[in-house]
């Protein structure tokens, strides 16, 4: 016996029964119909789960303006790309400035003490409160029972910012259908984390809607309806002004 021969003595043949059992449980074991059925069922379960989750996400996306606005806002901050656009159909209009009847006027100090909100604190440079009618800077219409205020700022280039506020009796909903014409669109944005609608254009004196005339942001907060117009500002700027209103 050489120096390592003794180590071979421990080798032994496995029991034939064990060998056959292994072969039977592996190589000779065809996938059973039950197993195939499970595979089939699992595939359908996966597809069904994906379908259900997709449906729920779609439902949330298309029924919740908050979600859409949040997604828009996030994507805009990340990449500057607007992916969700709300197409506005010309079916129903809401009150425009031209539809409001002048009833009374008050000073800006009176207005500030009267309204349950502060006027915007953040405005672009060179904008100053402009006389609206005669020497009054704030126009108040329909004072009883629900006053509507309008204030305007103007700069040296005659570019205008105007804010209209009223008690929210419009039942405003971001999905409200505005009479903006077929070629115009609005997009949902966030003002202090609340959904708002930002759209192009304004009504001209002849009550024609001009989509190229400035941008308007409308939203509600604490029962107050706000409509902020700027003749020459970017989206981000008008949103910043809106967020400075408490």
């Amino acid at each position: 016996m050489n120096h390592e021969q003794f180590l071979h003595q421990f080798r032994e043949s496995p029991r034939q029964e064990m060998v056959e059992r292994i072969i039977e449980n592996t190589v000779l074991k065809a996938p059973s119909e039950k197993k195939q059925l499970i595979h089939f069922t699992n595939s359908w379960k996966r597809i069904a789960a994906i379908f259900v989750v997709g449906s729920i996400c779609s439902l949330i996306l298309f029924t919740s303006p908050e979600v859409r606005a949040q997604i828009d806002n996030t994507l805009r901050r990340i990449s500057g790309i607007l992916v969700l656009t709300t197409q506005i159909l010309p079916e129903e209009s809401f009150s425009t400035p031209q539809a409001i009847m002048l009833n009374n006027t008050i000073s800006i100090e009176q207005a500030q003490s009267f309204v349950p909100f502060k006027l915007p604190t953040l405005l672009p440079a060179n904008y100053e409160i402009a006389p609206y009618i005669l020497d009054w800077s704030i126009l108040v219409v329909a004072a009883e029972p629900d006053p509507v205020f309008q204030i305007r700022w103007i700069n040296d280039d005659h570019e205008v910012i105007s804010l209209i506020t009223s008690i929210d009796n419009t039942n405003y909903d971001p999905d409200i259908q505005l009479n903006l014409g077929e070629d115009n669109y609005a997009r949902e944005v966030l003002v202090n984390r609340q959904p708002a609608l930002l759209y192009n254009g304004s009504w001209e004196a002849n009550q024609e809607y001009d989509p190229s005339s400035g941008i308007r942001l409308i939203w509600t907060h604490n029962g107050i309806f706000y409509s902020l117009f700027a003749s020459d500002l970017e989206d981000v700027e008008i949103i910043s002004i809106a967020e400075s209103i408490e």
Partner: protein
Amino acid sequence: MFRIIDGGYVVQSQSSSINWEQTFREYIPRIYNFFLYRLCNRMVAEDLTAATFERAWKSHRRYRENLGAFSTWIFTIAQRVMADHFRREHHEISLDVIELFIDTETSVEDASQHQQNLAHLRKLLYMLPPRDQELIALRYGAELTSRQIAQLTNLSETNVNTILSRAIQKLRKSLEVTL
């Protein structure tokens, strides 16, 4: 050439060229003896052998001939099965339960002495460091070459031979002293 199979695995159709039954029959004794040398227990060796081939069969479609020898693949699985076993059992094997190996071809008179020698040798093997036990199990149980062992253990071939040589000398001396 690749194809998609159950479970989404992407495999080479080359693997179908293997005669799995024949290959398994060839390797079952080697895997079994690997466990037997390493664990000193027939029943556990059988269970782990079965577990090794069942695990191998589950993933046999992923085996690629061109990436390595079958022996390396199957013994890698066997090592994992054994590692799992040690993790479960904490490797608490009492020397008292080490089985006696019975050589059925020896005479009745010799059987008793042979049994005692083998049992004693098993105890000596068990007292070797785990790495030495592993190498002896791979060399004499699985009958792998030094090169194959080196591939499996990440040791150099020279290192494998040196460790094995020292372990064998140690075993022989212990055996001669005690017999």
